[in-house]
Protein backbone atom coordinates (compact mmCIF):
# COMPACT_ATOMS: atom_id res chain seq x y z
CA UNK A 1 0.00 0.00 0.00
CA UNK A 2 1.58 3.26 -1.15
CA UNK A 3 -0.33 5.73 0.99
CA UNK A 4 -0.49 3.76 4.22
CA UNK A 5 -1.04 6.20 7.09
CA UNK A 6 1.30 6.64 10.03
CA UNK A 7 -0.06 3.94 12.38
CA UNK A 8 2.53 4.75 15.04
CA UNK A 9 0.89 8.09 15.75
CA UNK A 10 -2.69 6.84 15.71
CA UNK A 11 -4.79 5.54 18.60
CA UNK A 12 -6.00 1.94 18.32
CA UNK A 13 -9.50 3.33 17.75
CA UNK A 14 -8.30 5.50 14.87
CA UNK A 15 -6.56 2.50 13.38
CA UNK A 16 -9.72 0.45 13.75
CA UNK A 17 -11.70 3.19 12.00
CA UNK A 18 -9.13 3.32 9.17
CA UNK A 19 -9.33 -0.44 8.81
CA UNK A 20 -13.11 -0.30 8.74
CA UNK A 21 -13.05 2.22 5.90
CA UNK A 22 -10.59 0.04 3.96
CA UNK A 23 -12.03 -3.34 4.92
CA UNK A 24 -12.02 -5.88 2.11
CA UNK A 25 -14.75 -7.89 3.80
CA UNK A 26 -17.05 -4.86 4.11
CA UNK A 27 -16.56 -4.45 0.36
CA UNK A 28 -17.32 -8.12 -0.23
CA UNK A 29 -20.49 -7.77 1.84
CA UNK A 30 -21.54 -4.67 -0.11
CA UNK A 31 -20.85 -6.51 -3.35
CA UNK A 32 -18.04 -4.13 -4.38
CA UNK A 33 -15.65 -7.06 -4.48
CA UNK A 34 -16.98 -10.28 -6.05
CA UNK A 35 -17.27 -13.41 -3.94
CA UNK A 36 -19.08 -16.73 -3.89
CA UNK A 37 -21.85 -16.21 -1.33
CA UNK A 38 -23.18 -19.24 0.45
CA UNK A 39 -25.64 -17.67 2.86
CA UNK A 40 -26.82 -14.27 3.98
CA UNK A 41 -29.45 -12.75 6.23
CA UNK A 42 -29.88 -9.40 7.96
CA UNK A 43 -26.99 -9.93 10.39
CA UNK A 44 -24.51 -12.40 8.96
CA UNK A 45 -22.98 -13.40 5.65
CA UNK A 46 -21.11 -16.51 4.64
CA UNK A 47 -18.82 -16.75 1.61
CA UNK A 48 -16.47 -19.40 0.29
CA UNK A 49 -12.85 -18.84 1.35
CA UNK A 50 -10.71 -18.26 -1.73
CA UNK A 51 -7.75 -19.94 0.01
CA UNK A 52 -9.59 -22.92 1.44
CA UNK A 53 -8.25 -25.51 3.86
CA UNK A 54 -10.71 -27.93 2.24
CA UNK A 55 -13.39 -27.99 -0.43
CA UNK A 56 -16.37 -26.05 0.95
CA UNK A 57 -14.40 -23.99 3.51
CA UNK A 58 -16.73 -21.14 4.53
CA UNK A 59 -16.06 -17.80 6.16
CA UNK A 60 -18.89 -16.63 8.40
CA UNK A 61 -18.94 -12.95 9.29
CA UNK A 62 -21.14 -10.23 10.67
CA UNK A 63 -22.49 -7.78 8.11
CA UNK A 64 -21.46 -4.92 10.34
CA UNK A 65 -17.71 -4.40 10.80
CA UNK A 66 -16.39 -5.60 14.17
CA UNK A 67 -12.68 -6.26 14.55
CA UNK A 68 -12.90 -8.99 17.19
CA UNK A 69 -15.49 -11.31 18.72
CA UNK A 70 -15.74 -9.60 22.14
CA UNK A 71 -16.89 -6.37 20.39
CA UNK A 72 -19.84 -7.95 18.60
CA UNK A 73 -23.12 -6.83 20.24
CA UNK A 74 -25.06 -9.46 22.12
CA UNK A 75 -27.97 -9.91 19.69
CA UNK A 76 -25.68 -10.25 16.68
CA UNK A 77 -23.41 -12.74 18.45
CA UNK A 78 -26.45 -14.69 19.61
CA UNK A 79 -27.80 -14.90 16.06
CA UNK A 80 -24.39 -15.84 14.67
CA UNK A 81 -23.93 -18.67 17.20
CA UNK A 82 -27.42 -20.05 16.68
CA UNK A 83 -27.02 -19.92 12.89
CA UNK A 84 -23.79 -21.92 13.14
CA UNK A 85 -25.89 -25.00 13.73
CA UNK A 86 -27.79 -24.55 10.46
CA UNK A 87 -24.63 -23.74 8.53
CA UNK A 88 -22.95 -26.88 9.86
CA UNK A 89 -25.97 -28.91 8.81
CA UNK A 90 -26.19 -27.35 5.32
CA UNK A 91 -22.46 -27.72 4.73
CA UNK A 92 -22.45 -31.38 5.77
CA UNK A 93 -25.26 -32.14 3.36
CA UNK A 94 -23.70 -30.15 0.51
CA UNK A 95 -20.24 -31.66 0.84
CA UNK A 96 -21.53 -35.06 1.95
CA UNK A 97 -19.45 -35.34 5.07
CA UNK A 98 -20.41 -35.72 8.70
CA UNK A 99 -17.69 -33.68 10.41
CA UNK A 100 -16.73 -30.03 10.51
CA UNK A 101 -14.27 -27.78 12.31
CA UNK A 102 -15.23 -24.35 13.64
CA UNK A 103 -12.14 -22.18 13.97
CA UNK A 104 -11.97 -18.72 15.54
CA UNK A 105 -8.86 -16.58 15.89
CA UNK A 106 -8.94 -13.48 18.08
CA UNK A 107 -5.85 -11.40 17.38
CA UNK A 108 -3.07 -11.60 14.79
CA UNK A 109 -0.93 -13.84 17.02
CA UNK A 110 -3.76 -16.41 17.01
CA UNK A 111 -3.89 -16.30 13.21
CA UNK A 112 -6.60 -13.70 12.64
CA UNK A 113 -5.95 -12.63 9.06
CA UNK A 114 -8.54 -9.94 8.61
CA UNK A 115 -9.53 -6.85 10.59
CA UNK A 116 -13.19 -7.87 10.11
CA UNK A 117 -14.17 -10.57 12.59
CA UNK A 118 -15.03 -13.87 10.94
CA UNK A 119 -14.94 -17.51 11.79
CA UNK A 120 -13.98 -20.47 9.65
CA UNK A 121 -16.27 -23.41 9.06
CA UNK A 122 -14.31 -26.23 7.44
CA UNK A 123 -15.77 -29.55 6.23
CA UNK A 124 -13.64 -32.43 7.49
CA UNK A 125 -12.93 -35.92 6.26
CA UNK A 126 -10.90 -38.77 7.67
CA UNK A 127 -7.18 -38.39 6.94
CA UNK A 128 -7.71 -35.00 5.28
CA UNK A 129 -4.28 -33.83 6.41
CA UNK A 130 -5.64 -30.87 8.39
CA UNK A 131 -3.62 -31.85 11.42
CA UNK A 132 -3.01 -28.24 12.45
CA UNK A 133 -6.54 -28.13 13.87
CA UNK A 134 -5.60 -30.80 16.39
CA UNK A 135 -5.16 -29.19 19.79
CA UNK A 136 -1.88 -30.43 21.27
CA UNK A 137 -1.71 -32.21 24.61
CA UNK A 138 1.25 -31.24 26.77
CA UNK A 139 2.63 -31.81 30.25
CA UNK A 140 2.82 -28.86 32.58
CA UNK A 141 3.37 -28.66 36.32
CA UNK A 142 0.08 -28.85 38.17
CA UNK A 143 0.60 -25.47 39.83
CA UNK A 144 1.10 -23.81 36.43
CA UNK A 145 -2.37 -24.99 35.41
CA UNK A 146 -4.04 -24.54 38.79
CA UNK A 147 -3.08 -20.88 39.17
CA UNK A 148 -5.84 -20.06 36.66
CA UNK A 149 -8.60 -22.12 38.29
CA UNK A 150 -9.98 -19.61 40.80
CA UNK A 151 -9.77 -16.44 38.66
CA UNK A 152 -11.31 -18.12 35.59
CA UNK A 153 -14.05 -19.63 37.72
CA UNK A 154 -15.08 -16.31 39.21
CA UNK A 155 -15.01 -14.53 35.81
CA UNK A 156 -17.05 -17.25 34.08
CA UNK A 157 -19.60 -17.36 36.88
CA UNK A 158 -20.14 -13.61 36.63
CA UNK A 159 -20.36 -13.60 32.83
CA UNK A 160 -22.75 -16.56 32.65
CA UNK A 161 -24.95 -15.03 35.35
CA UNK A 162 -25.18 -11.89 33.24
CA UNK A 163 -25.86 -13.98 30.11
CA UNK A 164 -28.67 -15.89 31.80
CA UNK A 165 -30.23 -12.71 33.11
CA UNK A 166 -30.19 -11.30 29.56
CA UNK A 167 -31.73 -14.36 27.99
CA UNK A 168 -34.22 -14.83 30.83
CA UNK A 169 -33.08 -18.41 31.32
CA UNK A 170 -32.00 -17.91 34.93
CA UNK A 171 -35.32 -16.32 35.81
CA UNK A 172 -37.19 -19.37 34.57
CA UNK A 173 -35.00 -21.58 36.70
CA UNK A 174 -35.47 -19.56 39.85
CA UNK A 175 -39.22 -19.64 39.37
CA UNK A 176 -39.04 -23.43 39.30
CA UNK A 177 -37.09 -23.51 42.54
CA UNK A 178 -39.62 -21.23 44.24
CA UNK A 179 -42.39 -23.55 43.13
CA UNK A 180 -40.53 -26.46 44.74
CA UNK A 181 -40.18 -24.55 48.01
CA UNK A 182 -43.81 -23.59 48.03
CA UNK A 183 -44.95 -27.19 48.09
CA UNK A 184 -46.25 -27.61 51.66
CA UNK A 185 -45.35 -31.21 52.37
CA UNK A 186 -42.77 -33.25 50.47
CA UNK A 187 -44.13 -36.48 51.97
CA UNK A 188 -47.07 -37.95 50.11
CA UNK A 189 -50.16 -39.12 51.94
CA UNK A 190 -49.47 -42.74 51.08
CA UNK A 191 -46.08 -42.66 52.84
CA UNK A 192 -47.66 -40.92 55.78
CA UNK A 193 -50.44 -43.51 56.13
CA UNK A 194 -47.85 -46.29 56.00
CA UNK A 195 -45.81 -44.59 58.70
CA UNK A 196 -48.85 -44.30 60.96
CA UNK A 197 -49.84 -47.96 60.39
CA UNK A 198 -46.27 -49.10 61.12
CA UNK A 199 -46.14 -47.20 64.39
CA UNK A 200 -49.13 -48.20 66.58
CA UNK A 201 -47.94 -46.00 69.44
CA UNK A 202 -48.04 -42.93 67.24
CA UNK A 203 -51.40 -43.96 65.81
CA UNK A 204 -52.75 -44.32 69.32
CA UNK A 205 -51.36 -40.94 70.29
CA UNK A 206 -52.86 -39.20 67.27
CA UNK A 207 -56.22 -40.83 67.92
CA UNK A 208 -56.47 -40.29 71.62
CA UNK A 209 -54.09 -37.53 72.61
CA UNK A 210 -53.60 -35.17 69.64
CA UNK A 211 -52.29 -32.42 71.96
CA UNK A 212 -49.55 -34.72 73.31
CA UNK A 213 -48.67 -35.71 69.76
CA UNK A 214 -48.16 -32.06 68.81
CA UNK A 215 -45.58 -31.82 71.61
CA UNK A 216 -43.98 -35.02 70.36
CA UNK A 217 -43.67 -33.48 66.88
CA UNK A 218 -41.86 -30.46 68.25
CA UNK A 219 -39.44 -32.68 70.18
CA UNK A 220 -38.60 -35.04 67.32
CA UNK A 221 -37.21 -33.57 64.07
CA UNK A 222 -37.75 -36.82 62.10
CA UNK A 223 -41.44 -36.87 62.94
CA UNK A 224 -41.67 -33.14 62.46
CA UNK A 225 -40.45 -33.56 58.89
CA UNK A 226 -43.25 -36.04 58.16
CA UNK A 227 -46.03 -34.10 59.81
CA UNK A 228 -44.96 -30.58 58.89
CA UNK A 229 -47.84 -28.30 57.85
CA UNK A 230 -50.47 -30.86 58.75
CA UNK A 231 -53.49 -30.07 60.91
CA UNK A 232 -53.14 -32.70 63.65
CA UNK A 233 -56.69 -32.19 64.92
CA UNK A 234 -58.08 -32.94 61.45
CA UNK A 235 -55.76 -35.92 61.08
CA UNK A 236 -56.97 -37.29 64.39
CA UNK A 237 -60.60 -36.87 63.34
CA UNK A 238 -59.92 -38.53 59.99
CA UNK A 239 -58.19 -41.49 61.61
CA UNK A 240 -60.99 -42.09 64.09
CA UNK A 241 -63.51 -41.91 61.22
CA UNK A 242 -61.51 -44.63 59.39
CA UNK A 243 -61.30 -46.70 62.55
CA UNK A 244 -65.04 -46.53 63.05
CA UNK A 245 -65.20 -47.71 59.44
Amino acid at each position, binding site marked *: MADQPDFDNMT*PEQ*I*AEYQKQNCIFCKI*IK*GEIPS*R*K*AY*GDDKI*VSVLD*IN*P*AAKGHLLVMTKEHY*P*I*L*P*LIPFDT*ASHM*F*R*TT*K*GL*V*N*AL*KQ*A*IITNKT*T*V*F*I*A*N*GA*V*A*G*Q*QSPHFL*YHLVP*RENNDGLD*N*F*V*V*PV*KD*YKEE*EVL*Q*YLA*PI*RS*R*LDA*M*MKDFKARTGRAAAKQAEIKLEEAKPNPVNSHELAKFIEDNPKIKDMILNNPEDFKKEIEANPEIKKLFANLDIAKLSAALSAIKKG
Partner: protein
Amino acid sequence: MDCVVCDKISEKKAMIVYEDDNLVAILPSKPAVPGHVKVMPKKHFTQVDEMGDDLVEELFFLANFASTAVFEIAKAHGTNIILNESDNHLAIDIIPRKENDGLNFIWKPKQMSPAEMDEVHAKITDKAFLVGRGDEFAKSAKKEGPKEIIAEFEDKKSAGETTKEEPKDAKKGKINYLLKHLIKIP
Protein backbone atom coordinates in the same frame (compact mmCIF):
# COMPACT_ATOMS: atom_id res chain seq x y z
CA MET B 1 -22.67 -45.62 25.63
CA ASP B 2 -19.28 -45.58 27.33
CA CYS B 3 -17.80 -42.12 27.35
CA VAL B 4 -14.81 -41.12 29.47
CA VAL B 5 -15.92 -37.48 29.37
CA CYS B 6 -19.45 -38.29 30.57
CA ASP B 7 -17.95 -40.33 33.43
CA LYS B 8 -15.64 -37.53 34.45
CA ILE B 9 -18.47 -35.00 34.33
CA SER B 10 -20.78 -37.11 36.48
CA GLU B 11 -18.01 -37.94 38.96
CA LYS B 12 -16.75 -34.34 38.85
CA LYS B 13 -13.23 -35.70 38.36
CA ALA B 14 -11.90 -32.58 36.70
CA MET B 15 -10.71 -29.05 37.38
CA ILE B 16 -14.11 -27.46 36.87
CA VAL B 17 -14.20 -23.72 36.20
CA TYR B 18 -17.89 -23.48 35.35
CA GLU B 19 -20.91 -25.71 35.69
CA ASP B 20 -24.67 -25.39 35.26
CA ASP B 21 -27.49 -27.74 34.25
CA ASN B 22 -26.40 -27.95 30.61
CA LEU B 23 -22.74 -27.00 30.39
CA VAL B 24 -19.41 -27.58 32.02
CA ALA B 25 -16.03 -25.87 31.56
CA ILE B 26 -12.79 -27.41 32.75
CA LEU B 27 -9.05 -26.90 32.73
CA PRO B 28 -7.69 -29.96 30.91
CA SER B 29 -5.01 -31.80 32.91
CA LYS B 30 -2.78 -31.87 29.81
CA PRO B 31 -3.36 -28.46 28.21
CA ALA B 32 -1.83 -26.99 25.06
CA VAL B 33 -0.73 -24.12 27.33
CA PRO B 34 -1.63 -23.19 30.92
CA GLY B 35 -4.92 -21.27 30.78
CA HIS B 36 -6.35 -23.63 28.14
CA VAL B 37 -10.09 -24.12 28.84
CA LYS B 38 -12.42 -26.77 27.45
CA VAL B 39 -16.17 -26.13 27.36
CA MET B 40 -18.72 -28.84 26.62
CA PRO B 41 -22.35 -29.82 26.91
CA LYS B 42 -22.98 -32.14 29.86
CA LYS B 43 -25.18 -34.36 27.75
CA HIS B 44 -23.37 -36.59 25.28
CA PHE B 45 -23.36 -35.00 21.83
CA THR B 46 -20.77 -35.45 19.11
CA GLN B 47 -22.16 -33.05 16.45
CA VAL B 48 -23.15 -29.37 16.56
CA ASP B 49 -26.30 -30.03 14.54
CA GLU B 50 -27.53 -32.61 17.07
CA MET B 51 -27.90 -29.99 19.77
CA GLY B 52 -30.86 -27.65 20.33
CA ASP B 53 -30.53 -24.01 19.25
CA ASP B 54 -30.45 -22.74 22.84
CA LEU B 55 -27.72 -25.19 23.78
CA VAL B 56 -25.61 -24.26 20.75
CA GLU B 57 -25.99 -20.60 21.66
CA GLU B 58 -25.12 -21.16 25.34
CA LEU B 59 -22.11 -23.29 24.46
CA PHE B 60 -20.65 -20.69 22.09
CA PHE B 61 -21.31 -17.86 24.54
CA LEU B 62 -19.52 -19.82 27.26
CA ALA B 63 -16.61 -20.35 24.84
CA ASN B 64 -16.63 -16.64 24.01
CA PHE B 65 -16.63 -15.71 27.73
CA ALA B 66 -13.87 -18.20 28.45
CA SER B 67 -11.87 -16.58 25.65
CA THR B 68 -12.31 -13.13 27.21
CA ALA B 69 -11.49 -14.48 30.67
CA VAL B 70 -8.27 -16.27 29.71
CA PHE B 71 -7.20 -13.37 27.50
CA GLU B 72 -7.19 -11.15 30.58
CA ILE B 73 -6.18 -13.61 33.26
CA ALA B 74 -3.38 -15.36 31.35
CA LYS B 75 -2.27 -11.96 29.93
CA ALA B 76 -2.53 -13.36 26.43
CA HIS B 77 -2.05 -11.54 23.13
CA GLY B 78 -4.88 -13.38 21.43
CA THR B 79 -7.03 -16.49 21.71
CA ASN B 80 -8.10 -19.41 19.57
CA ILE B 81 -11.50 -21.05 19.83
CA ILE B 82 -11.56 -24.45 18.14
CA LEU B 83 -14.34 -26.97 17.79
CA ASN B 84 -13.38 -30.20 16.04
CA GLU B 85 -16.36 -32.50 15.60
CA SER B 86 -15.39 -36.14 16.05
CA ASP B 87 -16.99 -39.33 17.30
CA ASN B 88 -16.18 -38.30 20.87
CA HIS B 89 -17.96 -36.03 23.35
CA LEU B 90 -18.23 -32.61 21.72
CA ALA B 91 -15.97 -29.91 23.21
CA ILE B 92 -14.66 -26.45 22.32
CA ASP B 93 -11.05 -25.63 23.14
CA ILE B 94 -10.16 -22.08 24.16
CA ILE B 95 -6.43 -21.45 23.99
CA PRO B 96 -4.69 -18.26 25.12
CA ARG B 97 -1.99 -17.26 22.63
CA LYS B 98 1.25 -15.34 22.99
CA GLU B 99 4.02 -14.39 20.56
CA ASN B 100 6.38 -17.30 19.90
CA ASP B 101 4.40 -19.77 22.01
CA GLY B 102 5.27 -22.59 19.62
CA LEU B 103 1.62 -23.21 18.65
CA ASN B 104 0.29 -22.98 15.11
CA PHE B 105 -3.25 -23.86 14.10
CA ILE B 106 -3.13 -22.34 10.62
CA TRP B 107 -3.57 -24.67 7.69
CA LYS B 108 -1.86 -24.73 4.33
CA PRO B 109 -4.37 -23.46 1.71
CA LYS B 110 -5.50 -25.84 -0.99
CA GLN B 111 -5.18 -24.80 -4.60
CA MET B 112 -8.57 -24.96 -6.26
CA SER B 113 -9.48 -23.90 -9.79
CA PRO B 114 -12.34 -21.41 -10.33
CA ALA B 115 -14.33 -24.27 -11.87
CA GLU B 116 -13.90 -26.39 -8.75
CA MET B 117 -14.85 -23.42 -6.59
CA ASP B 118 -17.97 -22.80 -8.68
CA GLU B 119 -18.96 -26.43 -8.40
CA VAL B 120 -18.71 -26.52 -4.61
CA HIS B 121 -20.43 -23.12 -4.46
CA ALA B 122 -23.40 -24.50 -6.38
CA LYS B 123 -23.63 -27.48 -4.03
CA ILE B 124 -23.67 -25.25 -0.96
CA THR B 125 -26.19 -22.69 -2.26
CA ASP B 126 -28.35 -25.67 -3.10
CA LYS B 127 -28.46 -26.53 0.60
CA ALA B 128 -28.39 -22.96 1.96
CA PHE B 129 -32.12 -23.12 2.61
CA LEU B 130 -31.29 -25.56 5.42
CA VAL B 131 -29.52 -22.84 7.38
CA GLY B 132 -32.82 -21.33 8.40
CA ARG B 133 -33.57 -19.36 11.46
CA GLY B 134 -33.87 -21.84 14.27
CA ASP B 135 -35.52 -25.12 15.17
CA GLU B 136 -38.98 -24.16 13.90
CA PHE B 137 -37.75 -22.85 10.59
CA ALA B 138 -36.26 -26.22 9.66
CA LYS B 139 -39.77 -27.65 9.32
CA SER B 140 -41.02 -25.06 6.84
CA ALA B 141 -37.69 -24.68 5.07
CA LYS B 142 -38.56 -26.91 2.16
CA LYS B 143 -41.06 -24.42 0.80
CA GLU B 144 -38.38 -21.79 0.44
CA GLY B 145 -35.89 -22.42 -2.33
CA PRO B 146 -32.23 -21.49 -2.12
CA LYS B 147 -32.55 -18.84 -4.83
CA GLU B 148 -35.02 -16.79 -2.82
CA ILE B 149 -32.67 -16.59 0.12
CA ILE B 150 -29.83 -15.43 -2.07
CA ALA B 151 -32.16 -12.92 -3.74
CA GLU B 152 -33.19 -11.64 -0.36
CA PHE B 153 -29.56 -11.25 0.52
CA GLU B 154 -28.87 -9.34 -2.68
CA ASP B 155 -31.69 -6.91 -1.86
CA LYS B 156 -30.45 -6.27 1.62
CA LYS B 157 -26.79 -5.94 0.88
CA SER B 158 -27.05 -2.25 0.12
CA ALA B 159 -29.62 -1.48 2.77
CA GLY B 160 -28.68 1.11 5.40
CA GLU B 161 -25.47 1.45 7.31
CA THR B 162 -26.25 1.13 10.99
CA THR B 163 -24.32 3.24 13.42
CA LYS B 164 -21.20 1.70 14.82
CA GLU B 165 -21.31 0.90 18.51
CA GLU B 166 -18.51 2.51 20.42
CA PRO B 167 -16.64 0.15 22.70
CA LYS B 168 -17.25 0.85 26.37
CA ASP B 169 -14.45 2.56 28.24
CA ALA B 170 -13.98 -0.34 30.61
CA LYS B 171 -13.35 -2.67 27.70
CA LYS B 172 -10.98 -0.36 25.86
CA GLY B 173 -7.77 -1.16 27.69
CA LYS B 174 -8.29 -4.87 27.31
CA ILE B 175 -9.09 -4.85 23.64
CA ASN B 176 -6.54 -2.25 22.60
CA TYR B 177 -3.84 -4.85 22.37
CA LEU B 178 -5.92 -6.91 19.98
CA LEU B 179 -6.88 -3.91 17.88
CA LYS B 180 -3.34 -2.62 17.74
CA HIS B 181 -2.00 -5.91 16.58
CA LEU B 182 -4.49 -6.24 13.79
CA ILE B 183 -2.40 -3.69 11.84
CA LYS B 184 0.12 -6.46 11.30
CA ILE B 185 -2.38 -7.89 8.89
CA PRO B 186 -1.29 -7.11 5.34
